[in-house]
């Protein structure tokens, strides 16, 4: 009991080590919010691309605009991290990779592979 009281009063947040799976988890949430914010823009772009040959050309021009490299990298990272971390969570739901060591390893893998793949996507497309 006494230990619980102590734990509740602990205020030295910078002293707490943030475990890797927690980083994966909070980034999954952050990426999800970023993707939500992208939805209206993507719906607008989709509509534009189907509005006719002119609209298609304008949508293409939008995707190849001046900021497209950075935006594309950010969007690709958000999507890839959300997708990979999501697949990891689904696997954990099924009882796969639940133990501490595999959970840490797959969390590292997601955190590292998502930005690398995003760099590749932005590089190939841009």
């Amino acid at each position: 009991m006494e230990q619980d009281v102590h734990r509740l009063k602990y205020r030295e947040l910078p002293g707490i080590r943030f475990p890797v799976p927690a980083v994966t988890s909070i980034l999954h949430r952050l990426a999800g919010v970023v993707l939500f914010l992208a939805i209206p823009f993507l719906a607008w772009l989709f509509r534009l691309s189907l509005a006719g040959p002119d609209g298609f050309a304008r949508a293409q021009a939008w995707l190849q605009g001046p900021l497209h490299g950075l935006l594309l990298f950010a969007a690709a990272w958000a999507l890839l991290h959300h997708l990979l971390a999501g697949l990891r969570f689904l696997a954990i739901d099924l009882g796969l990779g639940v133990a501490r060591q595999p959970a840490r390893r797959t969390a590292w893998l997601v955190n590292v592979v998502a930005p690398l793949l995003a760099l590749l996507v932005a590089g190939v497309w841009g």
Partner: protein
Amino acid sequence: MSRKPSGLRAWLWQRLTAVYLALFLVTTAAALWLHPVTGFADWQARLAGPWTGAAAGLFGLALALHAWVGMRDVILDYVHRLWLRVLLLAAVAAVLAGSLFWMLAALLPAGLTGGS
């Protein structure tokens, strides 16, 4: 997340839509990579196909549902003032409903007029 039976149902929908979204995204990315879109006519003809059109429409629906459950969780976790909560939830619902309507409205004419 897991409060009341409605929380469990939301959790289940989130997982079901996640599986469909992942399958759609990976197969679509592979298809676009192997067969890049050549122009407007090609783009329109592809989306006018009954299967691709239905798959894309279902993607929009699944995405809206998935984003709703996720944003609802985020707002319920971090926003505790009731009026702000209601305001933000309404804004999210409006954005998602509007986006879905826009997407389906763009998709339906492609299915009706394209593909010829």
